């Protein structure tokens, strides 16, 4: 395992170093695609921290993402303050949302909690449509400021952000806190009996997951220049986040980012097939779920373990 961890580290470093050189020779179109994929990767990694480690099935990752994205967008739209401050406030709003989401999680378990999170997304969606003057409703919210319009700079920002988030989340998952989280996800009673404060650890996981989701959501809307229900709140977006994490391999954090990049790039490659693209991606994801439940990274790791 020690060898593998270090090997994983070197592979990750190589991939990131290679990815960082991409703006020098690929088109802006590919960069734009990967920029979105990297932010998506952070969504999936944050989700994996909650599900893979804390064992909480969060069906509403977009509740956290959307809160961060819309808060940042609305503040920028209303008061015109600098994007960086907006993004920070958006991330903080997502943390508050994470706290709210964590409350039922501490009371109910399993499918019941999953449902609460789903309802949270539907509520947010309704709220956005009803308060259309503030949020832009179904048309979407226009955001006046951008961080930069340079495709390369945006790409590097996204890559850097994903790398840092990935390092923090992965580090966290491998730390003693991650182990306690894993234990409390699998058997909360026993973990509590060993003297660990389950409530505190789970709240912490929610807050961290919400922080990165919200931050990534806010960065994404400043990249898009618009926030809409279809891009950051819709249940379908949340489904994609979950599929990305399960595809890449749950409980691996890094795998979730791989899954997200795969999903978005594959969706783009399949664009010529038109309406069948979503069908094919879902079918591939279903096959992975049925036959390789460990996901990409899980399959690679078990092969590694065997040899």
């Amino acid at each position, binding site marked *: 395992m020690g060898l593998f961890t270090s090997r994983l580290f070197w592979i990750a470093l190589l991939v990131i170093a290679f990815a960082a050189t991409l703006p020098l020779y690929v088109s802006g179109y590919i960069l734009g695609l990967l920029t979105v994929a990297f932010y998506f990767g952070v969504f999936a990694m944050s989700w994996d921290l909650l599900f893979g480690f804390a064992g909480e099935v969060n069906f509403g990752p977009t509740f956290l993402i959307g809160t961060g994205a819309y808060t940042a967008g609305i503040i920028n739209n209303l008061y015109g303050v600098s994007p960086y401050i907006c993004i920070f406030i958006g991330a903080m709003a997502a943390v508050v949302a994470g706290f709210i989401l964590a*409350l039922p999680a501490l009371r109910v378990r399993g499918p*019941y909690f999953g449902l609460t999170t789903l309802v949270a997304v539907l*509520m947010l969606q309704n709220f956005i449509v009803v308060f259309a003057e503030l949020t832009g409703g179904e048309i979407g919210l226009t955001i006046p400021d951008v961080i930069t319009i340079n495709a390369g700079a945006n790409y590097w920002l996204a890559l850097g952000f994903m790398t840092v988030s990935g390092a923090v989340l992965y580090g966290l998952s491998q730390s003693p806190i991650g182990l306690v989280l894993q234990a409390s996800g699998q058997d909360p009673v026993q973990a509590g009996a060993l003297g660990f404060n389950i409530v505190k650890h789970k709240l912490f996981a929610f807050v961290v997951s919400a922080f990165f989701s919200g931050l990534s959501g806010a960065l994404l809307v400043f990249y898009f220049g618009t926030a809409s229900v279809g891009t950051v709140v819709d249940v379908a977006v949340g489904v994609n986040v979950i599929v990305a994490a399960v595809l890449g391999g749950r409980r691996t954090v890094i795998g979730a980012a791989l899954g997200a990049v795969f999903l978005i790039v594959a969706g783009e490659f399949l664009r010529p097939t038109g309406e069948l693209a979503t*069908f094919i991606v879902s*079918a591939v*994801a279903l096959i992975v779920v*049925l036959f390789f*439940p460990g996901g990409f990274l899980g399959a690679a790791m078990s092969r590694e373990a065997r040899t």
Partner: protein
Amino acid sequence: MLALQILIDGFAISALYALGATGFTLIFGVSGVLNLSHGAIMVAAAVAAWAASSTFGIGSYAGALVGIVTALVIALLTYFVVVQPIQRSRRIANEEKEIFVLTGTLLWGIMIQEAIAYFFTNNAKTVLPIVTGVVEILGVRTPRNQIFTALVCCLVIALLWLLVNRTKIGKAVLAASMNPRGVTLLGLELTNIYVVVWIIYGVLAGIAGVLLGMFLGVSSYSVGPLTASAFSIVVLGGLGSVSGSLIAAFVVGYLETVTAYMISPAYRTIPALLLLVTVMYLRPQGLLGRR
């Protein structure tokens, strides 16, 4: 007048919700499976009925039958292709099977939805109703189709009650929901019971889907909202409790109708969601649920 209108309109929509949610909750109660392809199966039934009766012109009765059979076939496919392999998989830890079934059925539902959109476009489709015309009930103009919908829903639910409580196979299903191990010890094959439950579910979802297609019309966009409404009704009533979801269906149906008439159709779903959140906080097991 308005009160009567709400009473009549609300009843039909509630009865339809009840029928849609019953099969969903039955599967959960017996085999612990939350089937997220529910909405897709209902829409598939409606679209099949629409295609058979309008495009191929075989009449509305035969069309409805085609719709129900379609739902039945897809429901069985869902069980054999998605649910059973996950439940039997040795590579998935037991405590994770739930999330795998959820993810699997969700993906399966998206596949059905996309296939419908591909072959039959995204346009809304209204199934040729079996009965047409309007009738005045105490001064309220009511489409006959609406009354028909309500009647069929009540009849099917009554039949289901008889099936579960008065027949041998129904009692086996009921027993499996209480104690699966006990049932196997009595020499009944659990898989057979599950198949029976999925058949019942397929028929119920098919009838609900076809009626919905006649009553309100469907499109591949209705898949998500349909699954979500069945979900919330079932949670409100208590997962696995059939009588709970019947009550919840009427609560949600009337709450939506009242909101749509008294406030605005735009706010239609909000009070029901608020109620759902309140119930989840105060009584997480739902109105009539067991923990």
